[in-house]
């Protein structure tokens, strides 16, 4: 089947078998191997990408379902050689070890912070609960996401206003 998708700002036209999962389309057709496969049951989130701004597990979406849609993967986060604040924060806070969950975790966090730039620990934990990490124990991942949120919102933003932001996001 013929599909046309925008991935990290570039349009791709491809011919895929109807059963091709989005994760394999990205990894094997487009050679974007940042999204990983970790389970067969939509449990681990290692394959998470943004589909029209929403974090989805790309092992549970068919490539043909992405036809005409916009996708952002971990490879699309860096801008002009500048790492995304989440990428920097994961590095600074030691929020990764083997790195296998990291791309999916960061993509989920992207959507979370877009909704809620100043999440509490509990909100972060809830927000990333669909992404399994077997190495880090989550404490540093939570720290990294909170720190990236502060950076993304800019130093001037007032965390006291966070309740408003949350309600508008939910």
């Amino acid at each position, binding site marked *: 089947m013929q599909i046309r998708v925008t991935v990290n700002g570039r349009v791709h036209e491809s011919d895929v*078998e109807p059963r091709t999962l989005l994760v394999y389309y990205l990894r094997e057709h487009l050679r974007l191997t940042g999204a990983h496969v970790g389970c067969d049951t939509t449990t681990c989130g290692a394959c998470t990408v943004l589909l029209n701004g929403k974090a989805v597990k790309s092992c549970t979406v068919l490539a043909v379902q992405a036809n005409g849609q916009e996708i952002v993967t971990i*490879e699309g986060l860096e801008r002009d050689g500048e790492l995304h604040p989440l990428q920097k924060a994961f590095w600074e806070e030691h929020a*990764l*070890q083997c*790195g296998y969950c990291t791309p999916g975790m960061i993509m989920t966090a992207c959507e979370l912070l877009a909704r809620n730039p100043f999440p509490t620990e509990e909100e972060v934990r809830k927000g*990333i609960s669909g992404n399994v990490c077997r190495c880090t124990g989550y404490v540093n991942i939570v720290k990294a996401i909170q720190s990236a949120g502060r950076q993304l919102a800019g130093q001037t933003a007032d965390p006291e206003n966070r309740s408003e932001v949350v309600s508008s996001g939910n």
Partner: protein
Amino acid sequence: MAINQCELRPMGKPIHRKEDPRFIRGQGRYVDDIVLPNMLYMSIVRSPYAHAKIKSIHTEAAYQVPGVKLILTGEDLEKLNLAWIPTMAGDVQMVLATKKVLYQYQEVAAVIAETRGAAADAAQLVEVEYEALPVVVDPFRALQPDAPVLRDDREKQSNHIWHWEAGDREKTEEIFQAAPVVVSQNVRFQRVHPSPLEPCGCIADYNKATGKLTWYVTSQAPHAHRTVLAMVSGLPEHKIHVISPDVGGGFGNKVPVYPGYVCAIVASLQLGQPVKWIETRTENIASTGFARDYHMTAEIAADESGKVLALRVKTVADHGAFDAAADPTKFPAGLFSIVTGSYDFQQAFVEVDGVYTNKAPGGVAYRCSFRVTEAAYLIERTMDVLARRLNMDPAELRLRNFIKKEQFPYQSPTGWTYDSGDYEKTFKLALEKIGYHELRKEQAEKRARGELMGIGISTFTEVVGAGPSHSFDIMGIKMFDSAEIRVHPTGKVIARLGVRHQGQGHETTFAQIIGEELGLSADDVLVEEGDTDTAPYGLGTYASRSTPTAGGAAALCARRIREKAKKIAAHLLEVGEADVSWNGEAFEVKGLPSRKVTMSEVALAAYTNLPEGMEPGLEATYYYDPPNLTFPHGAYIAVVDIDKGTGAVKVRRFLAVDDCGNVINPMIVEGQVHGGLTEGFAIAFMQDIPYDEDGNCLAPNWMDYLVPTSLDSPHWETDRTVTPSPHHPIGAKGVGESPNVGSPAAFVNAVVDALAPYGVEHIDMPIFPWKVWEILRQNGVTE
């Protein structure tokens, strides 16, 4: 970017990891990311039965699927003498089943096709006719004389694999006879699985023209894997190139050689094309190295004051259908003999029997040194049983029994020499930091109000650094480890090591060790691992052995370079070698510290301006055979609250105080502790691989085999004491598995403590809410 890598003297600093930039960009290179020209895909046909005769296998229909290139069965492998291969534990294991299958999900055939989809489609069409045989899942049943004998390929007609013991049976017996207090407890350490996020897999790429096999594999021990392959395949070792690229977690699961690997290699040898095999999650859980499955009984003899005297342990170890355990061949239950823990027992006697059942084979050291996790859990659990019997505070009981600081090096009753430790100091720090006495008061108040709160202690002695060649080997190969360091003319360094990390941060920590020893920044040292064509021979990364063995090798290798550098420095400074000293950052003339040369200057001279007759270059190789293991220790305390309505346990606080000797990078150590605690938490509360009586694996995926998410996992508090190892070149001990070894007992002790008012002395893991709820219901606490 806040990267503080450029400083000199990098040891002990929380340097951000050098490996991270590729991972945060999605540029890690894991096996499944690699695509080779003309690559084929393999899918494995697995048995639905736990025990059955194979009457026939028909592959005709499968061969009709477009793109199918080859289908391998056990018969095909038999012709190559590869239907059975040796395991690390000295047993043999079927690669593809011949005649009968011995566990559910056992490998029966392998299908190789042009695409993943075609391979999977064709695998569905392989027709296998089975005739069911009686299934044995209970290891105690397997030991009964009338049990069906599962392994008819063995000479010994029983399911008993081996008997192993340590310590002195008679002297232990004598103490038990006379002891005023004896407690006994049955404890099961359930079957669990390491489940790294990346499953296992490989690409075998045999080049018919050169006769060379390149094998990309998720391997924790690439050199050992190469040797095993050379031994089983007949390919010469120098024509096998093993590459372990980035590995997405291992935890022991990526130590063994699995049947899928062998099939991919055979297929590539036959077809002359690269063959990729990547497991599914179900294949990973249901067929590759599980861990634990120890049925243990411990007895402690003590006096009335709580002084422990002797320990007696009897264990049945369920190894599944093939004994593919990862253990040094000299002691089949590995370091289970460390079961006396942190306590000064006069005598101990430990025995373990290995048993075959119709379950997946294995017994890997999951974030653990060869059964030390089982040992630590057992002793910590039984110490609490003793405290309860004596009506004594479990903290007080431990303080009375610790091996004292002055007793090190300490000779354990089962024959090991603990190198160093200060258990009392570490424990007291933990008690103080968590506010133990206040917590006990709070608990008393809560109890009075009918609320359920528990405090659990675990003070463990870990034993890591499998290496001393007098006791440790894998299939006879001594477990030293190695480093090779080259200093380039500009003072930049490439270091290659025989270990292979899977997230432990070696590229940073080994650069720190080498930078420290050479007076360079960690930035100037590039660490490479995992390629057998370039790295020196080593036994790999598991059992927390990298820092104790390869860390020692890296330091000593760098010191060897420094020796030569000193000679060159003397030449540059125009003084005798005896007049030169090393100040940590440069060589200086003794008494004239302003006259000095740096390592970079020496490096250039090593290629441009040498003393008469000296061999050019500045490099060294070091194979380090450590004199002893290292013995990190720790004191962990868990505080839990139990919901009376549901039986759910909430871990309110968890403090881990670890002592792993000198620390190379405190940030990485803390990260390792967090990760290990989360795995320990999962074992205590969530994980088990149960089988029904027909041998069906009941948790072959992450819906049933639970992995903790950010919502399940507690917030971790950590602290540290430092007791350097006296025999390790940099005084380090290794930490990666300590939290996984030490924490399950703290969790279970806390839950049992909370339920003690109802007479509960023990609950087997995993502590699911329904188990607690059932206890509460029986005691009329809840409906």
